């Protein structure tokens, strides 16, 4: 039993198995956003590691191939953007203005709220990459000195908020244009929001993934500048 649990492939087997199982459960229950497969899999893996007494360091070395794939996956984000390229290019000014205004507003609200409540600088840095897709949030977070594991939780929280209350909130403020709905979801809640947007329509999904990638690019450039104020 011990040999099995500490075999090099165990962590990877556990992770892939939990992910597939959580995905299946998610489909069967009608895709409730709160039971996003990534969240369920995280919890299942954590509980199993705890029960079997496997340290996080040992687990990480077993799943290093997944960590390694984050790089090529980030590069691959260019593909959805290339697909929706023509539509975006036709409305490039509107897209650019929205991207900049939203970026300024959401970084502004984050920093203002934390500074007003007297949060430590490290916490401000950790909260900054929140709306960026996780592979990019991880690398940017590392670059600006954020607590990257906590930054990942906040990223997941933003994604789940986008998938759960996002469409409802857009209804309340009467955003009916499929392109605007998709873009808004992608910009604040990256991949998890995008998967919800894809459920609305292809247009919504396409604009959402474009927004996710453009926001990641914009934040990669902007956040290190903002972060300088908190060092």
């Amino acid at each position, binding site marked *: 039993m011990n040999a099995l649990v500490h075999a090099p492939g165990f962590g990877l087997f556990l992770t892939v198995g939990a*992910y597939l199982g959580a995905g299946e459960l998610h489909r069967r229950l009608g895709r409730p956003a709160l039971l996003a497969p990534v969240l369920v899999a995280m919890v299942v893996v954590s509980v199993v590691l705890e029960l079997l007494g496997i340290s996080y360091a040992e687990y990480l070395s077993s799943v290093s191939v997944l960590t390694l794939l984050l790089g090529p996956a980030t590069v691959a984000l260019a593909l959805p953007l290339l697909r929706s390229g023509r539509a975006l290019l036709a409305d490039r000014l509107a897209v650019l203005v*929205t991207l900049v205004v939203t970026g300024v507003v959401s970084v502004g609200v984050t920093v203002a709220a934390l500074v007003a409540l007297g949060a430590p600088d490290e916490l401000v840095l950790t909260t900054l990459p929140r709306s960026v897709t996780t592979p990019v949030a991880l690398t940017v977070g590392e670059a600006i000195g954020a607590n990257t594991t906590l930054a990942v939780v906040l990223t997941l929280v933003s994604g789940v908020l986008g998938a759960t209350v996002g469409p409802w909130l857009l209804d309340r403020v009467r955003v009916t244009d499929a392109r605007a709905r998709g873009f808004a979801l992608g910009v604040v809640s990256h991949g998890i929001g995008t998967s919800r947007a894809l459920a609305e329509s292809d247009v919504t999904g396409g604009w959402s993934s474009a927004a996710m990638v453009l926001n990641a690019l914009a934040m990669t450039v902007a956040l290190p500048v903002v972060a300088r104020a908190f060092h």
Partner: protein
Amino acid sequence: MGLRTAETDGARSVLAALALLLGLQLLGTLLVDLTHLPVPGAVVGLVVLLGVGARFPRFARRAEPAGEPLLKHLQLLFVPPGVGALTQLSTLVQHAGPLALAVVGSFATGLVVAGLVLQRLLRRRGTA
């Protein structure tokens, strides 16, 4: 026999696509190292693929056999950092108030602002 050849070629194009994506990431890392840009190498690789792919669609299509499955199951890659994150729950709880306000506040304002601004701008362009 024919089936077998197709299968081998499929696996080959996946591996070639993965090598292409990794190559772009490494190229990005090299460029970052040379220019000291404060940007992750993978993001520079993304921009290179975007630039070259916009001009040569066939080049981008070569990345798809590995790129598409990776994007489709992107969330699998977040499970390990997420598990690590659960070990940070105490920090999260300690600062729960400010964090909730910052995250929920900027989420809601960001979503509403993005949706309203883009809808307004697209409409204006549509009627003009």
